[in-house]
């Protein structure tokens, strides 16, 4: 009798006790309060996209090992990570972001204003190259108080036109002579679609990437989707001629030429997947996407080509953006120190120090990971060019298939992304792009007018 009573007591009490006891030890084995375990500072960092190839993880783990060897008091815990507009908020609010995480340039200012990024100014200023950052680029991570809260890292990109050389060849086109005007893009897309049955041209449409790429197409035609007024407020200009021309262009490719394939619900990663699988002839995306195509989609390097986005009309330019590395506000001082050390080691030192650059490249090459994917300079252009010479022998990406981009990118005007309520603006344009691609009779003017009004309402609300 006693034993069964005890069992019952244990059973009924279990939940309440475990609630208090087991939960407070939680699922994390690391002591979380001060971010230390066994005397080491625990630092959770962003590793690679979920689903990356094993070789990519091997290379990453090797770099972590190198870092921990140099910093024996830091315990790095990598976590897979993909920034998505539609999931980031839950992670931010949920406090489940790693200590070091990545955000797009566009979100830096607001997150700083909201007090959601840690102040790492002191640590950043202590870096030897603190004064060498390209000021325009550093600005994205600087608060109104002039302090640095997030560092440009990983990549600064200009948008390029990525194309599948194999599909070009199958369609009887010369892969070494990619299109340089939008008319040529259209003709080549039609040729690819007719010859191969695959989509000659595709564009992203989901998770705000549709708006992002429509903005790219708008800039390329001299349009702008937003104006900054003198008083610092923003005016939406979604119904500009560039955006209209871009949408009409998509409409014609989709409905007159039938050269955009049959599947249109694509976001950043799914268009990469389709491209790597040979289902897409051409698409626009950041110049750095080749790295991801190798790491997660195992693309055949011989099939890959990169050229510049055609620019037409006055004020036309290439959209440029990039990634900031930021530190969680919950990080302790020790973690902040460790975080900036990691950012220095993993993202930046290889751009400023020849030994580090070579070591980094050797590690990547050892695991067949891409080295030398074209990006834009975080520091000065001269410094970028110099850093490329350090690793020239180790570059394993097909640079000769990217000259259409690399030859001209520094001559193309680089235009930053719209600054006010960027993601909402992109989201509103997603709907428009989707409508144009899935409804032959979509009224472009009316759609843009509606989107413009919606975005303006959001801008007004956020300003007020």
């Amino acid at each position, binding site marked *: 009798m006693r034993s069964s009573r005890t069992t019952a007591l244990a059973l009924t009490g279990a939940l309440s006790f475990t609630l208090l006891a087991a939960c407070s030890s939680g699922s994390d084995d690391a002591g979380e309060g001060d971010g230390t375990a066994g005397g080491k500072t625990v630092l959770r960092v962003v590793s690679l996209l979920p689903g990356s190839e094993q070789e990519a993880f091997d290379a990453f783990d090797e770099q972590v090992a190198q870092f921990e060897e140099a910093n024996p008091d830091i315990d790095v815990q990598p976590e897979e990570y993909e920034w998505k507009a539609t999931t980031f*908020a*839950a992670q931010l*609010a949920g406090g489940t972001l790693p200590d070091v995480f990545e955000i797009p340039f566009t979100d830096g200012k607001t997150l700083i204003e909201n007090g959601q990024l840690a102040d790492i100014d002191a640590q950043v200023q202590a870096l030897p190259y603190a004064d060498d950052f390209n000021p325009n680029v550093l600005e994205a991570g600087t608060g109104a108080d002039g302090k640095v809260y997030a560092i440009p890292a990983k990549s600064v990109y200009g948008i390029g036109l990525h194309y599948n050389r194999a599909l070009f060849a199958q369609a009887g086109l010369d892969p070494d002579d990619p299109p340089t005007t939008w008319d040529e893009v259209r003709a080549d897309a039609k040729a690819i679609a007719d010859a191969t049955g695959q989509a000659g041209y595709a564009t992203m449409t989901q998770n*705000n990437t549709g708006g992002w790429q429509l903005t790219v197409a708008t800039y390329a035609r001299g349009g702008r989707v937003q104006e900054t007024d003198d008083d610092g407020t923003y005016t939406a200009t979604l119904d500009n001629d560039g955006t209209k021309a871009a949408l009409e262009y998509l409409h014609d490719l989709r409905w007159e030429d039938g050269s955009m394939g049959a599947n249109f*619900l694509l976001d950043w990663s799914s268009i990469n997947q389709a491209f790597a699988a040979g289902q897409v002839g051409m698409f626009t995306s950041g110049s750095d996407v080749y790295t991801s195509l190798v790491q997660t989609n195992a693309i055949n390097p011989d099939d890959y080509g990169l050229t510049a986005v055609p620019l037409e009309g006055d004020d036309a330019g290439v959209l440029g953006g990039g990634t900031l590395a930021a530190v969680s506000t919950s990080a302790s001082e020790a973690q902040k120190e460790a975080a900036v050390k990691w950012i220095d080691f993993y993202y930046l030192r290889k751009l400023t120090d020849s030994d580090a650059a070579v070591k980094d490249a050797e590690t990547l090459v050892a695991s067949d990971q891409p080295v030398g994917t074209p990006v834009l300079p975080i520091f000065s252009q001269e410094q970028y060019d110099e850093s490329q010479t350090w690793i020239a022998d180790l570059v394993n990406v097909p640079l000769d298939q990217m000259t259409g981009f690399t030859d001209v990118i520094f001559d193309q005007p680089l235009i930053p992304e719209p600054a006010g309520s960027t993601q909402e603006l992109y*989201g509103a344009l997603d709907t428009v792009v989707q409508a144009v691609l899935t409804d032959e009779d979509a009224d472009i003017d009316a759609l843009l007018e*509606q989107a413009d009004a919606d975005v303006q309402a959001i801008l007004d609300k956020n300003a007020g």
Partner: protein
Amino acid sequence: MALTHEARATSPRRTPLTWVRRGGLSTLVFALPLLVVFGLFSWLPIGKAVVMSLQETNLVTTAWVGLDNVRTVLADPLLATAVGNTLWFAALALLLGYPVPLLAAVLMSEVRRAKGLYSAFAYLPVVVPPVVAVLLWKFFFDARPEGVFNTMLGWVGVGPVPWLQDADWAMPSLVLEATWAAAGGTIIIYLAALTAVPGELYDAAEVDGASVWRKVWHVTMPQLRAVLLITFILQIIGTAQVFLEPYLFTDGGPANATITVLLLVYRYAFGQSLGGDYGAATALSLMLAVVLAVLSVVYFRLTRSWSQT
């Protein structure tokens, strides 16, 4: 003073000691799991929902805004789209998911050999993890002529159909998958209800010389009335909260053709990278809740009256 004294005098047993002696403590041990779990994870959030719907918060600062959240939601042009889509989903789901399982169940109840085989095949899709089913069907719905369904349609000279890639086709495609995933469960419910129809009723009908059709129509159907109505209301309550399919298949696209109310709640709360509008999200979910609560009460009343007659 006098009052307290009197109260003590009338119930002298109510002291902590007697309470423990009379088993109050062990009773409380049994109450603890329920009180803790419901308190923290049901009652508290429900209360919070009501409060939050009247507030604007970014989790750091909070301000009372009265009915502003409700106004925000009502002013959102997407609301009408989402409500319309949800109703459309529910209607299509009823159209497909109601008569087909019923017909199948009525036929299956007459099977005399290998009945288990029928049930097994019917129930198989229900066992498939819903996320797997959606990801698989997403590939089936490939809109190229080489897509799985389009290849099949090609055999009979139809198509290709745009499936998820067209505002008009997207929702029916979602419902098709949802019905596939759920029909087996509904069939088994109907089957259970059919087995429970007392044989004497059929015997009696036969004495009156009723034909097969008349028996099905006048004996079987009325006996199923209760379970039919229950599944009807449950299905509406379920479809009003549909999330998985539109989220994974289309993320509400193309051009908001499949955005549902729950997806809109999700977007308010979690869909913006720079922080959600929790007030609007809870306000919209409460509005949906009121509608569903009315349905639930109707359902509750009906099941009660049926089980008593």
